[in-house]
C-alpha cells in the first residue's frame, strides 16, 4: 500500500501523460480489489483492519475514476461518444442483472455461495468492455482501411 502511494506520488510529479497513468491506476484498482477480497476471505484479521481493506479498493477506484475523468477531456468527440455508449450499455445490462437477481432471489432464495455481490463487480466491468466492443464496431474504429 505504501509502495503504491509512493509510486502514485512519483507519477503525479513526473507529469507523465494521463494515457500512460490510466492503465496503471486501473491495475492498482483491480489488484487492490482482488487483494482485499483474498485477504478478507482467507485471513482472520482484526475488525479495524477489515474495515481498511474494504475501503482501499474504493479509494483506488476513486483515483482511477478521477484520472479517467481528466482523460476524457483529452479525447476527441468520437472517442467520448464511444465511451458514453459503452457506459449506457454497461448500465443497462447491470440494471437488468440486478433486477433479475432480485426477482430470482425472491422466487428461489439464492444461495450466498452461488450468488452474491462479489460477483457483480467483474460482471459490470465485463459489461463495460462489451459496450466498448459494440460501440467501436458501430463507429468503424477498428476498420483499418484508411488511406
Amino acid at each position, binding site marked *: 500500500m505504501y509502495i503504491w502511494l509512493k509510486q502514485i506520488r512519483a507519477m503525479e510529479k513526473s507529469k507523465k501523460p494521463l494515457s500512460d497513468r490510466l492503465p496503471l491506476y486501473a491495475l492498482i484498482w483491480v489488484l487492490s480489489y482482488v487483494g482485499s477480497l483474498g485477504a478478507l476471505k482467507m485471513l482472520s484479521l482484526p475488525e479495524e483492519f477489515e474495515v481498511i481493506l474494504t475501503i482501499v479498493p474504493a479509494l483506488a477506484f476513486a483515483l482511477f475514476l478521477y484520472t479517467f475523468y481528466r482523460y476524457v477531456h483529452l479525447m*476527441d*468527440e*468520437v*472517442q467520448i*461518444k464511444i465511451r458514453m455508449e459503452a457506459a449506457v450499455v454497461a448500465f443497462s445490462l447491470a440494471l437488468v442483472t440486478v433486477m433479475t437477481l432480485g426477482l430470482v432471489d425472491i422466487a428461489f432464495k439464492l444461495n450466498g455461495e452461488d450468488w452474491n455481490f462479489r460477483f457483480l463487480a467483474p460482471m459490470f466491468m465485463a459489461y463495460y468492455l462489451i459496450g466498448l466492443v459494440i460501440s467501436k464496431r*458501430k*463507429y*468503424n*474504429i477498428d*476498420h483499418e482501411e*484508411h*488511406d
Partner: protein
Amino acid sequence: MKNTIKVERAKKNWTQAELAEKIGVSRQAINSIEASKFVPSTVLALRMAKEFGASVESIFQLEETDLV
C-alpha cells in the same frame, strides 16, 4: 449525411492521420467521419473545412433520409 472528405484529402494528398493531426482528433475519428458512421460537431466540421479551404456545405451534404 454524406461527405467528400476522402476526395478533399486526395486533392491535398493527405492521409487520414495527417488530416487528424491538423484538426486535433484521432485517426480513428477521421475514419469514422469519412465512413459516415459519425456526424462531427459544428466546430469540428468548420475546422475541417478551414483546413481544406472549402465551405462546410461543400464537404457535408444532407441525404434524402436526413430531410424532414
